[in-house]
């Protein structure tokens, strides 16, 4: 399924990036470009909504790690929204659930 990226900046200071479809080595560069673009535009509190992601592999994981690193170097943060067991499993196996803040919903992630 084609990767979809949708930005919602109606909840300042948060910027919600809704990701749909499959994130793998083919599609991940687009996600990386979008994160880089958002940071360069001054967005610092990004919420990546993974609820409609059908598939995420280690390349996608690496892009999110890179985004987190980039944001933290600008005193920002990258929060994930995910309740799907099959996606969370990838983060749990690699131990990255302790690196990212993971929320159950966009509402929870964007609460001040």
């Amino acid at each position, binding site marked *: 399924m084609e990767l979809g990226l949708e930005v919602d900046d109606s909840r300042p200071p948060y910027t919600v990036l809704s990701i749909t479809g499959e994130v*793998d*080595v*083919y599609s991940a560069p687009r996600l990386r470009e979008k994160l880089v673009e958002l940071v360069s535009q001054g967005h610092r509190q990004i919420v990546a909504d993974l609820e409609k992601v059908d598939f995420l592999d280690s390349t996608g994981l690496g892009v999110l790690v890179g985004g987190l690193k980039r944001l*933290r170097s600008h005193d920002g943060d990258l929060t994930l929204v995910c309740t799907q067991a099959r996606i969370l499993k*990838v983060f749990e*196996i*690699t*131990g990255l659930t302790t690196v990212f803040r993971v929320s159950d919903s966009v509402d929870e992630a964007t609460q001040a």
Partner: protein
Amino acid sequence: MDRSLELSVPSRTEYIAVVRLVVSSLASARRAIAEERIDDLKLAVSELCTNAIEANLSTGDKHPVVVTCWEAPERFAVCITDSGTGFDPDLLPQHPPVTDPDRLNFERGLGIPLVRSLVDDLRFESTPTGTSVWLILFGGPSSEGEDETSEIIRVVMTEEGPADRQTSA
């Protein structure tokens, strides 16, 4: 084990989605492994196919990646072969622990450790002219809830070794 499917995949990353769809659909239709492990298979195949395609691309190789599936009652195996320059899986760089701030400097190299944790058996045969990686999933629940049947199959497979599976090709 009987070979059930062989795919010759162009070394282009857009084909990886097709490979994981075909392989996972086959495993699901054959009911060779538990349904809850189909996602594990899909992810593992995708990771290894990514590595294989990148290995071919790194050498400018025009050969396809070959993905072969074997099936038997309560087990499903996949072999992914590239024509790259090979590597030593024991020499893969170790990532710092997640509590180390340097951990965020590692965006790559997550694939093989991930695959190791997803499948029941993983074997590498790497030479300077190519690498074949075997993954095997056994039937029944994941290893934490492994039943006696799966353990018996595991023992039999260990005794047979990879050579047996190759001769069935």
